């Protein structure tokens, strides 16, 4: 099913012409932002120098620090009276990033969400429970308006009160949910504890954090949903940037609205076709806050064209943000890799927590793992075997020795929003 078949399937020359036209418009729009006006002048580039889409490489990057430096309204290309909404990012790493939206921006954003929801098979008649934070976080209102646009019956349940969430899914005949994968797991856990099931549910859309294929199987099995990956970032409206179609194997990114590049995060050079690197996006239709070559910090790759659904080129699932990457004794580790290993082992229960310390100048990673109660034989030596199995599986994938601490089920924290599963206690190196 398509929401906007023409735009969703636009490819080849027709797409390139549209992208170029929109890029040219964007370059005029960014010129209204003093930061960009200055930066392009310094780089000795003007809008006229960008004659083809390839020329975008001549433009400087924009990164999160730049945006933080513009706090609060330094990146707005329109007067504040044309901004009808403001969202901000959490600001865990310094000042929050402020994102402004014109009425047209909100329409475009809803359009992208509408495409995604339709793509996974949702339409009028479906009942949709949106279980994410409805405040400044873009996941709440973003999905909300897109869902209303296509005529879903929307329940803006937000987060919290998990039992009530489950009752609503059952009582209202909810067919689709949206939340973080960690919260979905908690929903599954509480549903099982309550001894009930969720027979009406068919689609689960999960995003805002990286999650693995083993997490997908687990969520699909326990919630009996078809689970889809949702990708987005506040700087590009919020969720809706890229989304899985029923074929999965990557996420469709909306090329008519977003110009994508994959670069080597160190050199800034584009990587060869199909190689992994950092996703860089130039939004093509943003009015209030146009950006050029925004470095997302997310690691992915462009997948070969030719998805049977007919839509454009996909990006691979995000394995982690470069900010999330841990360097343990010189080895790069993404928390999502740890998750993938743990979720593939049946002895492991629902939650885990990674704790990193520096002991005698050496990084030590301890992973607290909740036991799966089905796998407790009552014998100490079987527990030691489980411990050993987990650490060997992790060593095979990460190339690192870890200390596994088995803990009681239910003893580790549960998360309603983005999960915080890593506690780094190493402090500063210097």
């Amino acid at each position, binding site marked *: 099913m398509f929401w906007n078949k023409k735009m969703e399937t636009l490819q080849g020359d027709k797409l390139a012409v549209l992208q170029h036209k929109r890029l040219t418009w964007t370059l005029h729009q960014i010129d209204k932002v003093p930061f960009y006006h200055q930066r392009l002048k310094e780089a000795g580039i003007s809008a006229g120098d960008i004659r083809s889409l390839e020329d975008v490489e001549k433009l400087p990057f924009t990164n999160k620090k730049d945006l933080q430096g513009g706090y609060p309204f330094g990146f707005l290309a329109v007067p504040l009276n044309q901004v009808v909404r403001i969202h901000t990012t959490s600001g865990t790493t310094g000042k929050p990033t402020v994102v402004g939206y014109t009425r047209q921006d909100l329409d475009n954003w809803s359009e992208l969400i509408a495409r995604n929801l339709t793509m996974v098979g949702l339409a009028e008649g479906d009942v949709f429970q949106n279980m994410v934070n409805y405040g400044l976080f873009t996941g709440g209102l973003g999905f909300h308006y897109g869902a209303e646009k296509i005529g879903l019956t929307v329940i803006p349940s937000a987060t919290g009160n998990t039992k009530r969430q489950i009752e609503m899914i059952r009582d209202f005949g909810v067919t689709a949910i949206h939340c973080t994968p960690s919260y979905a797991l908690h929903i599954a856990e509480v549903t099982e504890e309550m001894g009930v099931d969720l027979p009406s549910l068919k689609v689960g859309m999960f995003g805002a954090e990286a999650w693995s294929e083993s997490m997908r199987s687990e969520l699909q099995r326990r919630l009996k949903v078809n689970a889809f990956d949702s990708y987005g970032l506040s700087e590009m409206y919020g969720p809706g940037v890229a989304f899985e179609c029923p074929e999965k194997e990557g996420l469709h990114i909306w090329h008519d609205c977003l110009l994508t590049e994959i670069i080597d995060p160190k050199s800034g050079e584009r990587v060869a076709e199909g190689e992994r690197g950092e996703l860089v996006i130039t939004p093509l239709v943003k009015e209030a806050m146009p950006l050029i070559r925004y470095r997302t910090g997310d690691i992915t790759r462009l997948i070969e064209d030719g998805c049977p659904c007919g839509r454009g080129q996909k990006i691979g699932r995000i394995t982690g943000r470069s900010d999330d990457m841990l360097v343990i004794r010189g080895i790069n580790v993404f928390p999502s890799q740890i998750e993938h290993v743990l979720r593939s082992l049946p002895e492991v229960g629902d939650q885990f927590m990674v704790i990193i310390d520096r002991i005698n100048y050496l990084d030590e990673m301890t992973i607290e793992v909740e*036991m799966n*109660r089905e796998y*407790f*034989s*009552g*014998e*100490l030596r079987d*527990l*030691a075997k489980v411990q050993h199995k987990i650490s060997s599986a992790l060593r095979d994938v990460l190339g690192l020795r870890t200390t596994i*601490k*088995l*803990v*009681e*089920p*239910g*003893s580790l924290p549960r998360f309603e929003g983005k999960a915080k599963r890593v506690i780094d206690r190493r402090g500063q190196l210097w």
Partner: protein
Amino acid sequence: METDQYVIKQISIFSENRPGRLAAIAQAMEEEKVNIFAFSIAEADQFGVVRALVNHTEKAHKKLTSMGFIVSFTDVIAVRMRDEPGGLYAIAKVLGEAQINIDYAYAYSGRDAAVLILRVNNVKDAITTLLEHGVTLIENSFFR
């Protein structure tokens, strides 16, 4: 030989190695009016297993599970032992000669005799051997 009546269900509880866990277990048993005949704690570096022989096994299992503990049953045997020098030797010798290995054991001193609780590698053989040598085993009905 019928051995089933001598197979006793010990409850084994997974517990993190931190203060207050045993108190939580013991309090739960008090609330359920479950009497603990004997218990032991086996400990690895980060966690342990609390083993207990109680008078209402199912009730204890249900309560602890509802509290979130991981609990399982383990088959053990309870041997009546003379509470005097040589009492333990009499039993251990029989098992040793029959090549039956004791994984772990703990004991309590009851009203009329000491009781030795044994986890062995072959429960059936251990029961048969001990009975053949005239050792008294306690039937599982005693612990219900």
